[in-house]
């Protein structure tokens, strides 16, 4: 659904009113904010953390810290964008602060090469080259499950770069890596995800 200038203006007025009620400490306004923005924030924390329980904990942390920071919210900024950033931060903070299980490198998901530099197993074309604009919800769910199977550091890099839209420099900054290391991590994650999707799309296996 596309937004018209009128609907955008109306949304802006509504958001300013909500903000005023939040700053006045009105209980119903907090309820409204959680119900309106919580779902999108939970989707973000879920993508980054890969677990429902952790994503819910991160959402709670994100919203409580947003409530405390409401006074610092800049007039004119978009509330949704601000909350989205807080949700990303809360999820990344959680990743850093909790002890993670040792990661298994998925070497078998990366292409292998014979001595002369050719691929060990040449890829077979995907039967129906998936057109992202037309894929079904079922396929989307499959892709999400495959993303969840990536090693954590790869999943986080892929989500931040390819879904949340960070550029290589921002990604490196958020993950505490050099830009080159961040690029390599995203590249490995895409290669691994391609390998995980391959059995589902490969013409040979149909």
């Amino acid at each position: 659904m596309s937004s018209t200038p009128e609907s955008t203006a109306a949304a802006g007025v509504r958001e300013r009113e909500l903000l005023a009620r939040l700053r006045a400490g009105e209980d119903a306004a907090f309820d409204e904010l959680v119900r309106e923005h919580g779902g999108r924030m939970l989707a973000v924390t879920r993508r980054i953390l890969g677990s429902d329980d952790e994503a819910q904990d991160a959402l709670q942390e994100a919203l409580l810290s947003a409530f405390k920071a409401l006074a610092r919210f800049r007039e004119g900024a978009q509330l949704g964008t601000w909350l989205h950033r807080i949700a990303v931060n809360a999820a990344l903070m959680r990743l850093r602060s909790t002890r993670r299980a040792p990661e298994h490198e998925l070497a078998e998901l990366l292409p292998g090469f014979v001595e002369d530099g050719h691929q060990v197993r040449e890829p077979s074309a995907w039967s129906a080259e998936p057109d992202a604009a037309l894929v079904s919800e079922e396929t989307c769910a499959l892709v999400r499950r495959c993303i969840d199977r990536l090693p954590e550091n790869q999943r986080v890099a892929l989500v931040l770069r390819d879904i949340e839209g960070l550029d290589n420099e921002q990604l490196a900054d958020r993950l505490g890596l050099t830009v080159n290391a961040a690029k390599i991590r995203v590249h490995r994650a895409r290669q691994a995800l391609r390998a995980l999707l391959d059995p589902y799309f490969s013409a040979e296996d149909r």
Partner: protein
Amino acid sequence: MRCADLRARARDYFEDELAADVREACDAHLSECAPCGALFARGAALAEPDFTQAFGVQWRSAGDLTCAWVLEFLAAYLEQGLDPRERASFDAHLDLCEACRTYLTQYSSTVRLARHSAAESTPVPPALVEAILAARRAAP
């Protein structure tokens, strides 16, 4: 990066003509591979035709690129991160190699699918909404 890929790039390496990504990959290989390290240590001082003989390459061509090299730099290729000469070699390899073309198509589809499949919103359990609102009311 493989020894052959590094050595095929020796001339560009010494003339500082490599894209930053590629140069870093070359340096990483050089720090781990003693034979290549020794070769490059003396390579800069070699004049033609000793240079050509030492590195086993005359000049880079499509045939110099291996699939391993191409697949390593797919992201740089797609993000326009290769310099024009590297890009031309890359394109020449893709023209000749169906396996790499297939891989490139699938790699691009993978990125698009990841982006498109992301859930925009996830239902927040009512009990969690209540817990968050209760925590706010209880906060000092």
